[in-house]
């Protein structure tokens, strides 16, 4: 995980992307959330030696990225940052599973390498799908979708709070860190007792802030439920979106399209 300050920048950037105006941005958040979940389930449900079946799934993130004009390099970078855990766990497959599984000419590849490649592909597909969801919908959009999909109210409300105050508190923390490093001649490393003081102060300020927020909200008639002045409509376009992609996923999931195409080509040339 990169430093939290970079993450903050990232969140802002992704929110900017989410405020775009393409036709995909305008689709109801619920439709995008559901489609993303279907996509992930389909990809993850493929067997562990499966590579060829996974390839057609690339079309979903790619089509969305291009038609919504999302910055593809940026998304790649984000995926690469979090890749280490999947690589770390997957890299052992080639060592434990050495049975040859694929034979192309004289060249044989062990099952381990196949499943490792499969893990990396899975990882790329699922992570990009989640990132695209947020880039197209925005966090508040996802929260609204959750609420409409009957996720318990208190959970959704405090999720929105968390998101709203993320920026405020991270900036406060970074001011404290900066103040310390200026007063200590930018000495490297923080002693434990200083750390505790800073963190404790931040926590106390946070608690006070929460109380002020709550009082302010009570003045404005808060009753445990946030009302949003934005209408969502789940219409023809949304159903079309879900059905189109789901159908594509199902076809790609149960028919090995690449092998079919490959054997047609082979039959033609050989």
């Amino acid at each position: 995980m990169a430093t939290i300050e970079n993450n903050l920048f990232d969140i802002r950037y992704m929110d900017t992307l989410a405020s775009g105006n393409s036709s995909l941005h305008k689709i109801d958040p619920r439709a995008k959330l559901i489609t993303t979940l279907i996509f992930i389930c389909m990809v993850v449900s493929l067997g562990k030696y499966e590579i060829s079946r996974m390839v057609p799934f690339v079309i979903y993130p790619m089509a969305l990225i291009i038609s919504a004009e999302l910055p593809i390099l940026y998304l790649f970078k984000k995926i690469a940052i979090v890749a280490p855990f999947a690589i770390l766990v997957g890299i052992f497959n080639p060592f434990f599973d050495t049975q040859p599984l694929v034979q192309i000419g004289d060249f044989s590849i062990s099952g381990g390498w196949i499943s490792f490649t499969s893990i990396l592909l899975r990882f790329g597909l699922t992570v990009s799908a989640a990132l695209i969801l947020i880039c197209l919908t925005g966090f508040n959009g996802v929260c609204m979708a959750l609420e409409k999909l009957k996720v318990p109210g208190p959970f959704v409300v405090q999720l929105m709070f968390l998101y709203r105050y993320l920026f405020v508190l991270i900036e406060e923390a970074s001011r404290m860190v900066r103040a310390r490093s200026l007063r200590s001649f930018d000495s490297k490393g923080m002693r434990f007792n200083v750390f505790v003081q800073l963190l404790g102060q931040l926590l106390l300020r946070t608690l006070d802030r929460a109380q002020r927020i709550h009082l302010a909200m009570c003045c404005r008639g808060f009753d445990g439920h946030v009302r949003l002045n934005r209408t969502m409509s789940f219409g023809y376009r949304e159903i079309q979106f879900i059905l189109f992609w789901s159908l594509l996923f199902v076809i790609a999931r149960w028919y090995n399209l690449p092998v079919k195409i490959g054997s047609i080509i082979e039959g033609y040339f050989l």
Partner: protein
Amino acid sequence: MHMADALISPAVGGTMWVATAGLIGYCSKKIKEDIDDSKIPLMGVLGAFIFAAQMINFTIPATGSSGHLGGGMILAILLGPYAAFLTMASVLTVQALFFADGGLLALGCNIFNLGFFPCFVAYPLIYKMIVKENPTSKTLAVGATISAVAGLQLGAFFVVLQTVFSGISELPFNTFVILMQPIHLAIGVVEGLTTAAVVIFVWKSRPEILQPILSSQTEPKSSIQKVLIGFVIATVVVGGALSWFASAHPDGLEWAMFKTAGVEELEAPEKGIHSSLAAVQEKTAFLPDYGFKKTDMQGSDEGGDAWPAVDPGTSVSGFVGGLLTLLMAGFIGFILKRRKAANA
């Protein structure tokens, strides 16, 4: 520590989703019963605090590395188990969506691993036992440290279990456990010490913050059992229902059932659900069972080994076709881009 989508099977991911969703629903109900509205903004702001706290690092002497505050335990101590679980769930949701830390399907696993154990196991069973109603600095320190370590160890162990049951990674159980537990012991000690230090700081400067939770009646002793029982039932039902769903090693989950339950009695109903669901599913035929898999595996079901039947022809056509599919995908993308450019 965060589980990734790429490493879990739908059966494991789905089971953990159901378990987590149940817990979220249960905790939300509990929070609603607490008429105290002020808790909801407090939860959200403290969730944001968990992120902000990660900005402040201290140097661990003589190692060159640095440590920072972890999540679950401090939330449980400040908010009590129910609110802390919801807050932890939302912290992890934000991480999954924005930082791609973990994934959407793995979110259930992550919330369970990092939320359930600190809030519903370590907090009531360890922290509450050590820190009685009238805490001192010493009991607070010991309680916070031990419970943070224990919570993280349990969480790490569940990461191992979920990975092994999913069968995507080849890491054997023993190796993975030996890899994960010591690393998380070290992380847990750091997290425990920082948690304890911050809790003591709060206790010394503003004891009234900790007092209401310590003396509150929301002692989850009897309800924790309900939660646990509910979880076991959910696991059995969902595990049974999902195990047919495209798991490469269908027996992995049954083995898990047997191991975790330890009783064979449980297997019968599980089998029953399994078979009746399979019958329903055969009738509806929405999701073909292992049928399509058998053709792939060419009858190697009985062997139990990695698929031995290698057909070079299939491999080559798969390879060629895969490349072609990618090319086609690229072509579609190209056309989409051209159309975009033409429109602009």
